[in-house]
């Protein structure tokens, strides 16, 4: 038996151990209420809210439960800036899931943004000015 076969056998034998983790922090529902309150403030014309998912204690599987509860909406955008960032509007308009990854595709920050449009999607003034310079120099050539 070569090493790969033995590793594979070991892994499948690990799966036979009857582990059934039933942990839950109870933080999912309060988080959804926090989002509901933030949405009401947004609808009333107040500022948006950002929630850093790294700051919350979550049990295995709870982040996936949050994602499932929020669902998928109409907008999905990916940008490439120091690694990919995925910006998704959830099934609740105004609630966005923003996932920043580094160049190795490792998640470096994950936020829920309650806003009309996440700022990271907007063109930035500094970049616009740089773009004007570039366009002008190309037109001069």
């Amino acid at each position, binding site marked *: 038996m070569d090493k790969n076969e033995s590793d594979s056998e070991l892994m499948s034998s690990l799966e036979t151990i*009857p*582990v059934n*983790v039933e*942990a839950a922090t109870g933080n999912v529902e309060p988080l959804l209420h926090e989002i509901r309150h933030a949405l009401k403030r947004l609808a009333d014309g107040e500022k948006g809210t950002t929630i850093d998912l790294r700051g919350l204690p979550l049990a295995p599987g709870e982040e996936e439960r949050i994602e499932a509860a929020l669902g998928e909406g109409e907008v999905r955008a990916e940008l490439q*800036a120091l690694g990919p960032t995925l910006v998704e509007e959830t099934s609740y308009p105004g609630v966005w899931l923003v996932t920043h990854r580094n160049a*190795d595709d490792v998640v*470096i920050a994950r936020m829920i943004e309650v806003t009309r449009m996440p700022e990271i999607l907007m063109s930035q*003034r500094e970049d616009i000015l740089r773009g004007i310079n570039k366009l002008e120099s190309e037109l001069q050539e």
Partner: protein
Amino acid sequence: MRKDQTLGEYLQAQGVSRRGFLKFCSATASLMALPPSAAAQVADALASARRPSVIWLSFQECTGCTESLTRSHAPTVESLIFDVISLDYHHTLQAAAGHGAEAARMAAMEENAGKYLLVVDGSIPLANPAFSTIAGISNLDMLTETAANAAAIVAVGSCAAFGGLPNAQPNPTGAVSVSDIIKDKPIINVSGCPPIPVVITGVLAQFLTFGKIPELDHLGRPAAFFGQNIHDRCYRRPFYERGEFAETFDDEGARKGWCLYKLGCKGPTTYNACATLKWNEGASFPIQSGHGCIGCSEPNFWDKGGFYNPISAGNWGSRDALLGAAAAGAALGIGSAIAARRRQKKAQETTI
């Protein structure tokens, strides 16, 4: 990065867009455990931040702290932080050795007098200077010489912060922490054996961003990372509240992921960010992997009576162990139990 460049200028020269910079700031604010609304403040501060010189000294240590740091989520945010600090001396990582390396340290100290950040991992032996030397210089002499003109000191790991494993009884080398020796400089203790890598980079990012030390707890640790105990942030906490405990590592409770308190978990008395930041790129942390917290970010964790004894058993063993010591003491005619209780009393007094 040139020394006269600000971070904003450097990133622009590298072709990083403002959008990329905002992403960097958002991740950095998260890394520093700041509220997301602080990202704009971080952007303003970082845009004008200049490259600080960092001197890293390693004394009585196992290199686990450097291993932890160099295994942090390497590219982008952390590597950018390392691009923008000038790591002028780190004898494990640098190519130079001997006189060349020491000349680099002296040059960095002279050029950046009063402004450089000194990072220390490992404890300092006082019993005999020859127990640990670098280029023939004792750890004590190197620390006092390098600390004299530092802006601040970061003691990385439980050895530098509290003495750590070398300081465990009977402490044969007379190991002490950085703060036992240096009394006139701001010291940030980033404890842990090793510390969480993103906590190390988070503290460096904080210094780079705001040029000052963060809010510290009573043990000199950054409150943003050490402000809450593992227990309060642990996802297994609801089991504790319901009295559902694993009694052994292979019983039904263990399989169901119940609380590990009775198996010696030190989460209730340990202050660190493992339960939220986690390890290995956020994959897991010891409790999630089925093992109790050993309390490695707390002072004297090695001497607190066994990793598998519940906290309720006290710092110096269970009631049964103390009774056992009494029996042995009676048999031998030596008051072992009295000695054990004396140690326990002393430990309590020290703690208080």
